[in-house]
């Protein structure tokens, strides 16, 4: 793997990184609660939240900003965890939930509902989840040949993603006048999400995140290579499928609530690897924390940078994250003297 480190990352260093991320998370959360299109002072917010009467300030903070904050944290952690697990399944640093069809499947389902059955718009999350699961299942079925190997999963993913992508494009062309909903879905946004979304995601993401902690040992052994893992008594194909299922579940849960948010699942695990090394015992929790930080920062930025307008978190993510990641790659290259 690329994340080579000169020295073993000490427990102290990992502790420090986790502490810093946690502090960052708290600070960002306070900022996210505090800023927004309706400008309230800290004093006003504190007074309103802790008073018994129902003021506008309290409604905005408690019913708009707080649920959105919680969603950002959960989605960031889920997508990062999903990507991290998938990268061990594929033994490929380029794997992300899109690789196993989660995005394309959810996109296909959502586009179909939004454009062909607009009266069922309320059920989009449900269909998006089902679509994601179905596409993932299809890709693994196609890739199965006495077992799954990463190359076949990736290739069959490419094929199925392209078919679904073509279908989506065609559908959008035929309905080019009513694309607003589709675009919002495709560019992942947390705008207008409420407690009902939080309630759904807490259950799904909570379960998924707990499950991903159970994947740590398997993810580590897959990093040793298929033959080595097999000779250690690991059933490699079954492990791959189980880990992929956890990963797809997490990604699908976020897609159904917030639409497609790219980049987090791909890049956050990388940055975590740079920070704490490739042992999933440290890397996975770091990814979750960092994912929350990154998504919350992006969402807060997106809803405040242009007054009176919201930039979807998915777009902010890609625009800011891409260059930052390139910077990291180059900087690391220099450190290792190449």
């Amino acid at each position, binding site marked *: *793997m690329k*994340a080579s480190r000169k*020295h073993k990352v000490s427990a102290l260093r990992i502790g420090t990184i986790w502490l810093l991320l946690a502090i960052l998370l708290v600070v960002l959360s306070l900022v996210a609660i505090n800023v927004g299109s309706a400008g309230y002072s800290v004093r006003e917010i504190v007074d309103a939240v802790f008073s018994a009467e129902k003021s506008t300030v309290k409604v905005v903070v408690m019913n708009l900003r707080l649920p959105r904050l919680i969603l950002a944290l959960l989605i960031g952690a889920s997508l990062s965890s999903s990507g991290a697990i998938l990268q061990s399944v594929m033994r490929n640093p380029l794997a992300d939930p899109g690789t196993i069809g989660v995005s394309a499947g959810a996109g296909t389902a959502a586009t179909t509902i939004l454009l062909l059955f607009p009266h069922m718009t309320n059920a989009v999350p449900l269909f998006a989840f089902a679509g994601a699961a179905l596409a993932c299942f299809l890709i693994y079925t196609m890739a199965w040949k006495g077992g799954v190997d990463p190359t076949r999963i990736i290739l069959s993913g490419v094929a199925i993603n392209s078919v679904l992508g073509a279908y989506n494009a065609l559908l959008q062309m035929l309905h080019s006048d009513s694309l607003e909903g589709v675009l919002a879905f495709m560019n992942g946004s947390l705008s207008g999400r409420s407690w009902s979304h939080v309630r759904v995601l807490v259950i799904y993401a909570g379960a998924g995140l707990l499950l991903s902690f159970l994947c740590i040992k398997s993810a580590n052994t897959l*990093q040793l290579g298929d*033959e080595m893992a097999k*000779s*250690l*008594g690991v059933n490699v194909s079954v492990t791959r499928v189980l880990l992929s299922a956890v990963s797809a579940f997490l990604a699908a849960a976020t897609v159904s609530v917030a639409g497609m948010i790219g980049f987090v699942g791909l890049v956050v695990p990388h940055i975590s690897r740079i920070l704490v*090394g490739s042992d999933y015992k440290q890397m996975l929790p770091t990814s979750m924390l960092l994912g929350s930080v990154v998504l919350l920062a992006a969402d807060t930025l997106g809803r405040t940078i242009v007054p009176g307008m919201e930039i979807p978190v998915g777009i902010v993510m890609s625009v800011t994250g891409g260059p930052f990641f390139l910077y990291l790659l180059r900087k690391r290259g220099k450190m290792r003297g190449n």
Partner: protein
Amino acid sequence: MEIRGEQLKIGYGDFTVINNMDITVQAGRITSIIGPNGSGKSTVLKALTRLLAYKSGAVYVDGRDLRDFSSKELARNIGVLPQIHSAPPDFQVRELVGYGRMPYQKWYERNDAEDDRIIDWAMRSTGVWELREKSIHECSGGESQRVWIATVLTQQPEILFLDEPTTYLDIAHQLEMMQLIRRLNRENGIGVVMVLHDLSQALEVSDWIVVIKDGEKYAEGAPEDVITPKMMKEVYDVDCSIIRVPGRGKPLIAYHEI
């Protein structure tokens, strides 16, 4: 323990490497599988250890069908070091060696005191104890190969299968590896089955040698009975003499001048 392959037909896809082979390996001794490139040495090793499914025939471990073993049960009986293995370079040596305990653990279990004791024993037996705090990245080629041996040793196997354990090592580390393998066998009674390219080393450390040529077993037996000028000519198309040097227990292979 005895692992017996009967009428094995092995290959990849439509391509058959081994057509019909009977082969038996035993615990307690060092068996080397030798043969030219592409003769099917590694393929046989993989079939005997279930890393590769055979097309027909059967493999029995002490009379029990290899396919009846669960993955973990098999891993408690045999340890395999494949030719290609890699760990993320920042993995700690002790951590990696610890993975050898996985066959003894349920998925939720962690290493207990007994596991730790065995991990320590394996690290000491392979001389990597001093490296335990280092990362794989910091180990030399010879050191990291010993770390991998320690990992499979931690499985407490009766037979250790090694696929070309000395490839990519310089001569000092090759000899060191051979000494280690022989010590593990003599002192701990661990059976070793290895694919080797270096015939001098095979001649020196093996108790038993199996020669494979074009997917067929050409010969097997004690090293000095098998490694002969005739075999070298017929299998490798190489001319040589087997010479004895006073004061040296095993003979040497003297290749004819180039």
